[in-house]
């Protein structure tokens, strides 16, 4: 099964290579800084999905938390398909039915974007109340599988390889009927197959719905999470036979409950194993250090990543790891509520982080916005990580409580600058970036294969927003698709170091992250004006390190563990 998968994976890389030829040439050295704009191409690309909250006017808490989406290559043809998660009817709902998740296959030709709704043919239209999605090849057959974290029973979709998915939840033993939110596949025990982390939020159900808001005037609002009880998260160990075992307690992850919303995995202490960070909503965020013996240690307190600047638990929503300051270790972004700042925790080494939200420039601008999805990426290929944040208030009647705010809000785009500074440039990034939306999920990936990264925002109760990067004359780049052999097939947890224009760039292959969303599993490094193919150092989850001299740039390289580039 594995061999066949590898061969099919190798075979699919022709299309991106062809598309690379259409990319705009890099700017000559010394040219004026390129201006990058993003354009909403959702409808033009044929994506007609509209998220439905399944609401009835009762303002049940789950309605406003939104659903995610992701970029996945489910058919192994080398381009990114899109999966969008939907709500489901709540008690009292009278709108159209059924409400289904949707899969869109990327049928683009050249730069002409075209997505086809293949929900029915792929059998991926789950009817549950969907929240998050994460992707990974849990059975190492070379095909990307999906996990759906639902409000209600979760779903594991097994990719059968014939263009369809089958529901494998019960046989795999990974159904959780509680309110799950974000999820991530990871190989925490380095046994070569993918395990699964699922964050759970609170114990709200329609039966224990509470009245929150202005009781005197009977104006209901969505509840604060601490009105309900926090839940413990789940860690499932892959048994290697298509089944999983709940090891949450044995691994030391159930010592405390939290209002988990965002999950990101990464090796923050660079010791070769995958750690876990959970963004919690009004309970402390949690940083779990992998002890490399099947257990984790809660490092929240000593790391300084659990709280806001004044020691208060913030409303953590989305999160991501990224080496924004280019010092070789992973930093953390967490989005929060308005009147709180989004938090940027800089990794100082030694397991310690410092809160640099305000000094970096991301804090002040976020005070009047409610942030959800967050993703580090290099949108202009200049070799420095940038950051996008999906915004939108949780209260659809927000102005009733504060007329200085709005339900729909514009998204942020931060440009990474020297000295660890981040400059918010959303308003300068095209008219569509100024549009207010009630955004929740955020994923990034190169949807048109032109060498720059595009964004997908999911919108609560609305159409998603596929934002095409229309950069012209930006820097060179290199993409990497890693295929594990001794390691898990998706190479989740593989760490790559590339020499970039400002030093060594570091990133890891990861499932999940942001808020309820799945980014492209391939890695992307901006090289700015470099024309020489860089050397790549890959540390695989199996523990082996591989150094590769890329044969060229401005292309996606496929690297097979222990072998090298298989599409030179």
């Amino acid at each position, binding site marked *: 099964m594995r061999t066949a998968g590898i061969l099919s994976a190798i075979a699919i890389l022709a299309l991106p290579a062809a598309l690379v030829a259409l990319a705009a040439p890099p700017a000559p050295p010394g040219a004026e800084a390129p201006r990058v704009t993003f354009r909403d191409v959702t409808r033009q690309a044929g994506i007609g999905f509209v998220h439905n909250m399944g609401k009835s006017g009762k303002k049940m808490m789950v309605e406003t938390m939104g659903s995610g989406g992701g970029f996945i290559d489910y058919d192994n043809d080398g381009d990114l398909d899109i999966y969008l998660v939907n709500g489901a009817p709540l008690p009292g709902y009278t709108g159209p039915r059924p409400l289904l998740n949707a899969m869109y296959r990327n049928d683009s030709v050249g730069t002409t974007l075209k997505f086809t709704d293949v929900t029915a043919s792929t059998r991926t239209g789950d009817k549950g109340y969907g929240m998050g999605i994460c992707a990974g090849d849990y059975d190492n057959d070379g095909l990307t599988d999906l996990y759906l974290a639902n409000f209600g029973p979760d779903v594991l979709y097994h990719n059968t390889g014939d263009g369809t998915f089958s529901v494998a939840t019960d046989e795999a033993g990974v159904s959780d009927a509680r309110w799950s939110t974000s999820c991530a596949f990871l190989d925490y025990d380095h046994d070569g197959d993918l395990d699964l982390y699922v964050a759970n939020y609170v114990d709200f159900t329609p039966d224990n719905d509470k009245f929150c808001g202005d*009781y005197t005037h009977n104006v209901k609002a969505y509840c604060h999470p601490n009105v309900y009880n926090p839940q413990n998260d789940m860690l499932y160990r892959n048994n290697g036979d298509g089944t999983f075992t709940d090891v949450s307690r044995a691994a030391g992850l159930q010592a405390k409950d939290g209002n988990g919303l965002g999950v990101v995995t990464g090796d923050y202490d660079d010791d070769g194993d995958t750690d876990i960070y959970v963004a919690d909503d009004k309970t402390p965020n949690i940083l779990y250090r992998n002890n490399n013996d099947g257990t984790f240690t809660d490092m929240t307190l000593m790391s300084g990543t659990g709280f806001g600047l004044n020691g208060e638990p913030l409303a953590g929503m989305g999160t991501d790891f990224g080496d924004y300051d280019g010092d070789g270790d992973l930093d953390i972004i967490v989005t929060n509520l308005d009147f709180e700042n989004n938090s940027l925790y800089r990794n100082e080494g030694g397991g310690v982080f410092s809160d*640099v939200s305000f000094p970096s420039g991301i804090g002040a601008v976020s005070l009047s916005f409610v942030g959800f999805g967050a993703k580090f990426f290099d949108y202009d290929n200049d070799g420095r990580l940038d950051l996008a944040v999906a915004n939108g208030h949780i209260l659809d009647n927000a102005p009733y409580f504060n007329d200085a705010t709005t339900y729909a809000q514009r998204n942020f785009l931060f440009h990474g600058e020297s000295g660890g*500074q981040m400059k918010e440039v959303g308003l300068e990034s095209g008219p569509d970036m100024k549009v207010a939306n009630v955004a929740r999920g955020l994923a990034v990936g190169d949807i048109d294969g032109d060498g720059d990264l595009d964004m997908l925002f999911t919108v609560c109760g609305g159409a998603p927003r596929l934002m095409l990067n229309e950069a012209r004359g930006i820097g060179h780049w290199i993409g990497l698709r890693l295929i594990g052999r001794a390691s898990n097939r998706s190479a989740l947890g593989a760490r790559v170091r590339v020499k970039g224009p400002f030093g060594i760039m570091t990133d890891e292959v990861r499932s999940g992250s942001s808020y309820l969303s799945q980014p492209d599993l391939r890695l992307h490094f901006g090289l700015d004006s470099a024309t020489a193919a860089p050397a790549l150092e890959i540390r695989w989850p199996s523990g082996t390190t591989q150094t590769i001299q890329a044969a060229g740039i401005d292309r996606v390289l496929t690297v097979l563990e222990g072998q090298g580039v298989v599409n030179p």
Partner: protein
Amino acid sequence: MRTIRVMKHSRRLPSMFFVCFVCFAPALAMPQIRSQAPPPVTSLFSSLMTQGQAALKAEDYPSAQAALEKAIAARPSDVDAHYLLGRAYGQDKKYQFAAQQFRETLKLSPGHTLALIDLATIEETMGHFDEASAHYRQALKAGPNARADRGLASLLSKQGRQDEAIAALGRAMTAAPDDEETRYQLGLARMQKGDCAAAIPDFRAVLTRKPAHLGSLFNLGNCLNRTGAREEAARTLAQFQKASQDEAGRVGRRRRAYFLTLEADGKLESGDIAGAVKAMQEAIGLNPEDAGAQAMMGQAYDAAGDLPRALASYQKAAQLEPGDAMVLVEIGRLNGKAGRIADALSWLQRAARLDPLMPEPHMLMAAAYQQMGRTAEAAREDAIYRRLAAASRQTPAP
């Protein structure tokens, strides 16, 4: 919590008084006597201001808001009432309403330093830095002010201008060397600049005076950790964790009690008296010092026919919040119901003194006097009641 009770009283009083009339067996027709002059607005205003300030001090912000809104209705141009209402909203994180009240304050008293600073603080919280800066600076024109200095420094710090923030806070420290918040902000600014060694003494100094200061414990622990003092960092962060969990537990208990009170209110409304009593007993168990919950407990016991417990709950509520006239009315009514008419009168008179424009004590006093055979006094109180009730109907709710 108070929000419920304010709502509840206005909604439930008619049925309550129906019971009450039966209990007091008042005369159906009372002789009309010459009306007394209406109670002076001044005393009502003073009473409401006292109530509002007491509630604000007790961190009972909804009650403070209710009282101060009434105070403003009684005297719309009072600077202090607008300012205090702004504080009550601000502490309750209703920033929009708070800002509105501070602006009203500044319209009436353009140089009002506290209003300028509080308005600036809210603007800072909302990310409106330019407006905040202007208001802090305007406040400083009146003279040295540690809060305004601290606010300006905080703004600078949030804009990444740590050196300027540190300089401003240093000046503020010189002006007010014992101001813990200024010292804390100085520590924060130094820490954010990356100078933990300089920040540590600041956090320690704050903790000397305020040992449970969450921000100082947290950031001292972080800074000790960053400077390699791992063991002390662990101890400090453990202290922080405990203090933080205690605070979360306190807030959680209050929140749970609040929702139980809402639940009880709904059960009373639907006639599930036993359910209401049970919910309120649980709420009181979680937060026994909440006057509103005690009053609601009294109401539930009363509905269940448990007069002694109802009275005890209302009396506890009155102890916790002596300025709530409605609770005194309830105690009076229940004493009357128990046949202790003299006691009832005493409580009702206290209520009437506390809130001279409230009609209900007079209605009940009329009934009580009538029952005692003191018809002239009964008629007098009845007339007062009718006049105040009519006036109350004509006055829109604030």
